[in-house]
């Protein structure tokens, strides 16, 4: 028996086992559907021009075919779906966040430098003062294709005089054979094909770049399909010197901090996205406001997460112990009542608690006859948050503790009793250690969750109350709400900086979870 190589066992088994035909058919059917789906996605990606997406999708499809189409790579058959989801939903966002943390991406810094410069120039085009509007018909020379022919403006001034505008300039248009509407828009002109609305619209890109030059600076541009104006940009880009000049105010803007900046510090509105290296990280570490705030917030964040876990665990465990007593009647009813707070959506609960904490109109002060400014006093607000989180969190702990307690064998407790241990001693030396082994990892998960418990804070206090001289750092802010304010709601939404904060949070949570898991491991070894 021992002489038979163990590797032969599965082979023997395999030779005697035939895959039923329907299983094979189902497998290939599913693979075909997956292939069709991939083809559909790829086609969509091609039409939107995302070549990287095409390559990635094709690669994933090929992986699926190789893993499920062949008999090899058995472990992969189980792992692949999870791996794909892991990469797309976890790894990719992390990579993207890290990449963003090294840029100045945020409000005013979303475009490339080229695009931003173009935008600033385009936005500076203004109607030349004292000029009149033209009635416009967009045309191409007769005989050319409406989709590619040279764009020609047929223009009528308010006084009725008519012109032909091309990229070469403006020329008078003879009145012979011209038909016009009441408003003066030309509807027919010999030698030209007038574009209808849809044809003109299809050439929006050309029209955008097109202007009938009037002089060195100004040109006639279209507004829609029926009127044109004489406009001139007030900004000029000098590619050689890499500067933008305002020709009206006579100011030269040069690139600084990802903005076109004048010597007096004024900037053009649209800035660009650029790599800033480790600036976001060094800002977090050196900026006085951010630094003092960061540590203050960090301390509260740790305290909040730890106290939340402890309070909910202790309450949940005590209740679980209570309701685990075999002598208690109607346990099912009590237990389901206790799970209710867990069943109501947390958002609703948080908003209800927020209104209950209202100093003047809230239930809590009116029941207790206290006059605590729950959401306005920094310490009271912290207490309010912990109380709300206790309400929200204890049913979960109650559930897991109940489950864990029921899995502790009764004979262990009996043995302790025989050894002369009282109920307290049994709890401390027998029940608790066994309970902690089971719920320890859950406590760590709960800690990590509460560490980033964004919605509770935002719905209850929005991070406030704030100190008098700094409304960017609130006394109940967590790092995550602080990062959110930096990124989206602050003075200048800065997603790069917020990404840097997120990376710090990631390492903090990772370090804490790591040490936590090591502890539970040693706990297991004791047992």
């Amino acid at each position, binding site marked *: 028996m021992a002489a038979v190589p163990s590797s032969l066992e599965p082979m023997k088994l395999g030779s005697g086992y035939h895959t039923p035909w329907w299983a094979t058919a189902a497998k290939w059917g599913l693979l075909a559907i997956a292939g069709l789906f991939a083809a559909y996605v790829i086609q969509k990606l091609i039409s*939107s021009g995302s070549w990287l997406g095409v390559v990635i999708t094709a690669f994933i499809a090929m992986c699926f075919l190789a893993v499920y189409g062949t008999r090899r790579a058995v472990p992969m058959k189980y792992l692949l779906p999870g791996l794909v989801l892991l990469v797309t939903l976890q790894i990719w966002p992390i990579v993207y966040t890290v990449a963003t943390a090294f840029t100045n991406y945020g*409000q005013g810094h*979303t*475009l490339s430098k080229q*695009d*931003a410069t173009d*935008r600033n120039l*385009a*936005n*500076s*085009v*203004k*109607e030349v003062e004292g000029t009149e*509007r033209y009635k416009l018909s967009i045309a191409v020379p007769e005989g050319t294709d409406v989709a590619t022919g040279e764009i020609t403006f047929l223009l009528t001034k308010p006084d009725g005089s008519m012109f032909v505008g091309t990229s070469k300039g403006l020329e008078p248009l003879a009145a012979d054979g011209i038909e016009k509407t009441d408003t003066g828009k030309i509807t027919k002109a010999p030698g030209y094909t007038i574009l*209808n*609305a*849809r044809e*003109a*619209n299809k*050439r*929006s890109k050309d*029209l*955008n770049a097109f202007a009938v030059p009037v002089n060195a600076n100004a040109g006639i*541009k*279209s*507004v*829609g*399909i*029926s*009127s044109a104006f004489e*406009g001139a940009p007030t900004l000029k880009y000098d590619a050689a010197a890499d500067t933008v000049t305002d020709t009206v105010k006579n100011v030269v803007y040069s690139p600084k901090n990802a903005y076109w900046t004048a010597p007096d510090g004024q900037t053009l*509105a*649209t*800035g660009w996205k650029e790599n800033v290296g480790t600036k976001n990280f060094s800002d977090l570490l050196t900026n006085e406001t951010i630094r003092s705030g960061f540590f203050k917030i960090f301390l509260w964040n740790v305290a909040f997460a730890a106290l939340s876990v402890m309070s909910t665990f202790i309450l949940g465990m005590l209740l679980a112990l209570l309701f685990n007593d075999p002598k208690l009647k109607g346990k099912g009813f009590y237990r389901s009542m206790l799970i209710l707070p867990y069943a109501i959506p947390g*958002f609703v609960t948080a908003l209800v608690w*927020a*209104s209950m904490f209202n*100093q*003047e*109109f809230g239930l809590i002060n009116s029941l207790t006859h206290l006059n605590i*400014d729950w*959401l*306005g006093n920094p310490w009271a607000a912290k207490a309010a948050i912990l109380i709300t989180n206790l309400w929200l969190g204890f049913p979960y702990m109650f559930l897991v503790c109940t489950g864990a307690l029921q899995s502790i064998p009764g004979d262990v407790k009996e043995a302790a009793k025989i050894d002369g241990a009282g109920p307290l001693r049994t709890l401390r030396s027998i029940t608790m250690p066994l309970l902690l082994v089971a719920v320890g990892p859950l406590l760590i998960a709960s800690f990590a969750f509460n560490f980033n418990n964004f*919605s509770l804070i*935002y*719905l209850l206090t*929005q991070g*406030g*109350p*704030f100190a*008098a*001289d*700094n*409304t*960017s750092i609130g006394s109940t802010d967590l790092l995550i709400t602080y990062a*959110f304010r930096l990124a989206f*709601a*602050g*003075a*200048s939404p800065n997603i790069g900086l917020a990404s840097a904060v997120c990376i710090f949070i990631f390492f903090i949570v990772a370090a804490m979870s790591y040490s936590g898991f090591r502890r539970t491991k040693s706990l297991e070894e004791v047992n």
Partner: protein
Amino acid sequence: MAALVLAGCGSSGDTTSTSSTTSASAAASSSESSTASTSETSAAAPAEVDAKNPSRADADLVIWADADRAPILTKYAQQFAADNGVTVAVQIATETRKQFGDATKVGKGPDIVVGAHDWLGELVQNGTVAPIQLDEATAAKFAPAAMNASKFDGQNYGVPFSVENIALVRNTDLAPDAPATMDDLLTAAKAAKAKDSKVSVLLDQSVGKTGNAYYTYPWLSAYGGGIFALKDNGDYDADKVIVNSAESLKGAEQLAMMGKDKVLSTNVGDDNAEGIFTSGKAPFFFTGPWSIPNIKKAGINYAISNLPSLPGGDAMKPFLGVQLFYVSAKANNATLAQEFVTNYVPTKDFQLALFEAGGRPPALTEAYDEVAAANPEVKAWYEAGKDGKPMPNIPAMNSVWGPLGQAAADVISGKAEAKARFDAAQKEIEKAIKGAS
């Protein structure tokens, strides 16, 4: 399916329009953002209004609007489509401000988007909107304030269609007459409180623990104060913050007094201000047209009048919020988009139709005149905002909402003395603006 989408969005319509006005205020924008993080629609494309409409892939023009206005817009878009032999898709957008930015960045945005004027600074900074060259004659047809609101750095970027602002809404059962001054208001409110034991709040104004700069501004403006000084050309000057000017401080001291006298309270905030009024607990309410549907639903008899004048100062002047049509800088159909906003939006019929959908005073003078003649309520809103200025649309305003709101809250709650607190707010705002640019 289409009806379902409409119904689903319709219920949130009021909130959308509310947040569009005050979206820039710290409280409102944060609540907007928190929904963003919770709503599952964040990545989904906006719903089509009507199954009969072309899907956006075939459309020659794509317009995004909120759920209230989309149906009306569809009607006029169809007319535009018929006139020009093209197809137009009107889509309902939620979280429009954020979605428009995100979608435009990846080239999936609409050609035209309907939005509030105070988004403008951000949109220009991010390069997502294109200038709209309205000719002078057309521009002159609009209320000047509305036209100002659609300008940034001297360039026009929008075509306005409605103006909204806060006014004094009173419960006519509790306070029959419109007070002209704050003293009158308080006298009437105290009388109402003496008469009806349910009345517990003399003046219902959203303050909240973190404050609300949108509702703080009228107190400063009554004395000629405000947030930014004006440049020669009428633009707001980001380099001249006047939050602690002598004029603004007079307003701040009024706030302190109102807090001390228990007229205003930080316990009244966005979450309960409307409820206090609709439950008959307050005779007077500073609010905008967005509260009216709920006030009507609660069966409160109400009337709208101008904000009162403050002792030793002028009448309080509210911020104006203007709704605009923007053209995307990355529009695939820029030509038709420009045609639509320059030739169809500035017409009386169109503006009247949008009034029917939104109930806000139209921005086109001709349309407003017609509406005001038949509808005294619209006239009352307009009169209350007549001397108001548009909410600043410069990016620096981002740096103001938080600090100014909190300063007002601290002064009202008595935590800080008015001058010191507003000095600190001024310093913080200036520092934030400098850091941001």
